[in-house]
């Protein structure tokens, strides 16, 4: 492969015209949520970009993230990105199997040490190394080994980013995200269950275009895609403001497309691009289809008190415990009140009649 050649050269070699390249840059800018004014900059950068080596590790996962990526727009313009990268190891996609596959990984690591991108999907079990292994090696061990020579790590999917579904209570495998293990490498979290496909390719493109990782929020997510919450960009937001809510999935409000807050929509605390980028080639997103947001790009979304409970509602409240407080308070209050009554009665019993003589003759007189 021609790793030394720039992306511009590769594309030209493939017969892509300059017009085609500009079109590619325009959609790329849109993909990365950059303003159209950035297109010339992107064009310049991509022209000179070199294809990086990418190693993709899959741990405790469902392959949903890979499905999301590959089933989306292929062959597409972003497909080009994958032409532009060298995906040297991905055990679902690669042709090689068994020891040949592992060899491919090891040689890619050796050749590109310090420069390759590591993409991870799935969480890492810590309770027992044997819970998830590849070719007899535990996930933990492989991750540590591969991370050593990585320029950066992209944690794709909520499992790799925050532990995801395996991390849900009671977390039987002791699942943890990549960031719990690797602390000396830049990590980008691309959460979602699965993430929006263009977001995965968007991050790769960003790295490719600018040679560095995009700006991240406090949860390690690229701000370009996770900078706004679903609620703020939701087309149903006006219903929230007006106080028009669907109370059940088959009532008038649901039919009229009113806000799904009361049905447990997690839009207000979910930062993702679904409301604008949408799914299935821009067809719609869950709220548009009549279901509240599950909050899948947020840590612990599985344990956020139930998918169908309004965000503000208390969770796991024990009426008995709370009633216990009331009963305890009543008991102590009654005891205290009765003691007070006794004290008052004693004071009354101690009362000695006061006459004018006492008034004239006191300790302070």
């Amino acid at each position, binding site marked *: 492969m021609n790793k030394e050649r720039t992306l511009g050269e590769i594309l030209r070699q493939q017969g*892509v*015209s*300059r017009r085609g390249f500009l079109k590619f840059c*325009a959609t790329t800018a849109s993909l990365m949520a950059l303003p*159209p004014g950035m297109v010339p900059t992107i064009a310049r950068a991509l022209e000179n970009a070199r294809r990086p080596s990418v190693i993709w590790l899959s741990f405790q996962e469902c392959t949903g993230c890979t499905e999301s990526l590959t089933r989306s*727009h292929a062959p*597409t313009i972003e497909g080009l990105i994958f032409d532009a990268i060298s995906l040297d190891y991905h055990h679902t996609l690669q042709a090689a199997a068994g020891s040949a596959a592992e060899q491919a990984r090891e040689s890619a690591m050796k050749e590109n040490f310090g420069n390759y991108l590591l993409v991870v999907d799935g969480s890492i079990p810590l309770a027992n190394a044997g819970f998830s292994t590849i070719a007899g090696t535990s996930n933990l061990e492989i991750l540590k080994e591969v991370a050593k020579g990585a320029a950066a790590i992209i944690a794709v999917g909520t499992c790799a980013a925050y532990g995801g579904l395996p991390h849900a209570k009671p977390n039987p495998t002791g699942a943890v995200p990549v960031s719990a293990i690797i602390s000396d490498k830049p990590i980008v979290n691309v959460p979602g269950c699965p993430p929006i496909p263009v977001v995965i390719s968007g991050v790769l493109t960003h790295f490719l275009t600018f040679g560095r990782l995009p700006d991240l929020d406090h949860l390690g997510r690229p701000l370009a895609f996770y900078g706004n919450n679903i609620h703020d960009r939701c087309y149903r937001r006006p219903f929230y403001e007006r106080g028009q809510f669907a109370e059940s999935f088959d009532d008038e409000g649901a039919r009229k497309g009113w806000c799904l807050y009361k049905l447990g929509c997690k839009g207000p605390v979910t930062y993702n691009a679904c409301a*604008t980028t949408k799914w299935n080639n*821009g067809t719609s997103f869950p709220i548009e289809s009549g279901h509240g947001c599950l909050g899948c790009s947020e840590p612990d979304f599985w344990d956020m008190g139930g998918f169908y409970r309004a965000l503000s509602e208390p969770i796991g409240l024990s009426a008995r415990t709370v009633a216990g407080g009331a009963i305890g308070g009543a008991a102590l209050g009654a005891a205290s009140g009765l003691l007070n009554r006794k004290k008052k009665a004693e004071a009354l019993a101690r009362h000695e009649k006061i006459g004018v003589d006492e008034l004239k003759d006191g300790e302070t007189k």
Partner: protein
Amino acid sequence: MSFPPLEITRPESGNLKLILHEISHALSELMATGNERSIDLRGIPLAPGEEKKLLESLGEGEIRAELDALGKSRIQESRYSGVWIVTHCNSNGEIMGRFIEITRSPALLAAQTEDMAAGLDALRQLIATGTES
């Protein structure tokens, strides 16, 4: 068993009017200063059906061009001269992006230096050898 009919009222994001306002401002700026503007429709929250409505209100003008590079792209002048709708599709015909460009002529229509250079090379070779490379 029959389901009750869906009577979905079309909610409005309120952004349609804003986009039209932005276009009109950009157009007057183009006339006054020559500054061009491009609006990425992907970055704006729109309710179902609103994009269609926007395209309907922009209508179709005199020029329609098709670019065939990495899939088709349609460059359509709206009924308002100077306002263009540029739609990029991939090779499957799926829409990859849609922009409203406020410009005298979209940059993609102009011939690109690199492409002209390549064309010139090919043309010279044709003259010299009678065959393209």
